[in-house]
């Protein structure tokens, strides 16, 4: 299992696969995740990137932050694009034109995955291409200005689900993308967080043992969109994990394993309070009701997850 020294050693040996000199916001969680994922993979990789903050900020012509082959095509097609790259790899390997083992990674945000890219993702999962799909989940369309996505939590103030005097933020619950992917019965699915990067690195390593589609949904703080301090990426994500709002778990060949169980499960308020996007919830009765509902949902989903873990034990 890769620890931080192994990751550092790898980066020292082969150079950084994702360098400084990108224009992501100061304190953005995405580059932490990207560099960790790429350092955790031993083989050469090709990366496909959906339109989004990461893509825009890392490829402003004629500059690039990528020391691995990288392609961006559009918003909704990262999975289909990497599927094409992988198909080319299979074809050219069969013809003896490629002899190296190369692995394939797609990066996309929650908008590019939960919403507009869901169909392409589902198709690529079903067809069984060998790729790792990393969701950089910051729970809204950050690149276009913090509009709500289907990953945005209930009650959050986003620019297209604003907190108003009548409607206190997004009325709908978030979608459970991770479980949608589990339902595709691919070999490896996990949730990870920028607050637990070594856990993420370990998950990447376990995922890459499998040939076939793998997905890791990574919780990625957006200080700008969540209205938290610039240095808060790790701390806020840690609260999402410790409140069990964002459980860290993996589903390996159908077997659930919760990779981190907080010693003390914190109340949801601990995670909500430091974020500007939830501030209004504490100021009205409607908002407080939403907080209670969020807590109930977290409790229910956490219990379900533990139950799934128990139910699938011994299946392996």
């Amino acid at each position: 299992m890769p620890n931080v020294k192994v990751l550092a050693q790898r980066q020292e040996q082969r150079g950084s696969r994702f360098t400084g000199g990108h224009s992501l916001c100061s304190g953005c969680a995405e580059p932490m995740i990207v560099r960790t994922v790429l350092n955790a993979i031993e083989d050469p990789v090709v990366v496909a990137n959906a339109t989004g903050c990461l893509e825009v900020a890392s490829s402003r012509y004629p500059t690039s932050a990528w020391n691995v082959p990288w392609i961006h095509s559009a918003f909704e097609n990262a999975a289909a694009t990497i599927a094409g790259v992988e198909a080319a790899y299979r074809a050219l390997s069969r013809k003896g034109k490629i002899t190296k083992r190369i692995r394939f990674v797609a990066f996309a945000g929650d908008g590019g995955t939960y919403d507009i890219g869901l169909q392409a993702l589902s198709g690529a999962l079903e067809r069984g291409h060998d790729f790792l799909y990393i969701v950089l989940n910051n729970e809204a369309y950050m690149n276009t200005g913090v509009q709500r996505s289907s990953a945005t939590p209930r009650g959050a103030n986003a620019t297209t689900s604003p907190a108003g005097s009548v409607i206190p933020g997004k009325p709908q619950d978030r979608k459970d993308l991770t479980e949608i992917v589990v339902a595709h019965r691919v070999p490896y699915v996990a949730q990870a967080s920028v607050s637990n990067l070594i856990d993420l690195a370990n998950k990447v390593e376990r995922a890459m043992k499998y040939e076939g589609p793998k997905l890791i949904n990574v919780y990625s703080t957006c200080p700008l969109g969540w209205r938290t301090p610039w240095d808060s990426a790790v701390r806020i994500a840690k609260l999402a994990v410790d409140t069990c709002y964002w459980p860290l778990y993996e589903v390996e060949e159908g077997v659930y394993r919760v990779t981190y169980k907080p010693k003390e499960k914190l109340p949801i308020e601990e995670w909500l309070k430091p974020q500007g996007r939830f501030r209004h919830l504490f100021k009205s009765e409607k908002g407080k009701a939403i907080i209670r509902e969020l807590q109930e949902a977290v409790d229910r989903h956490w219990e379900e997850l533990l139950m799934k873990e128990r139910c699938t034990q011994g299946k392996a």
Partner: protein
Amino acid sequence: MAVELKSWKELPIGGVIPGGATPELNKTGSWRAQRPIWDSDKCIHCLQCWLHCPDDSILIRDQKVTGVDYDHCKGCGVCAAVCPVDAIEMVPERGGAG
């Protein structure tokens, strides 16, 4: 950042940027409002700052911290926030990059 803009005839085909990363072309250190000061005496080389740095600006050699790449560090302060021994202090930035 004075970069010479090229004519259309000089551009590689298809908008491709050959040759990998170009950190030298985008020195984001100029964004910085506060500067991390690393204290080598306090540092235990746990590499948490290196692991979390969004701008890959914690310099390391043989898995030990050697300093900060001020050409690219944007001064977010995540390194200081994750340091378990307070070996990085954020101080107000006075000069420009470098």
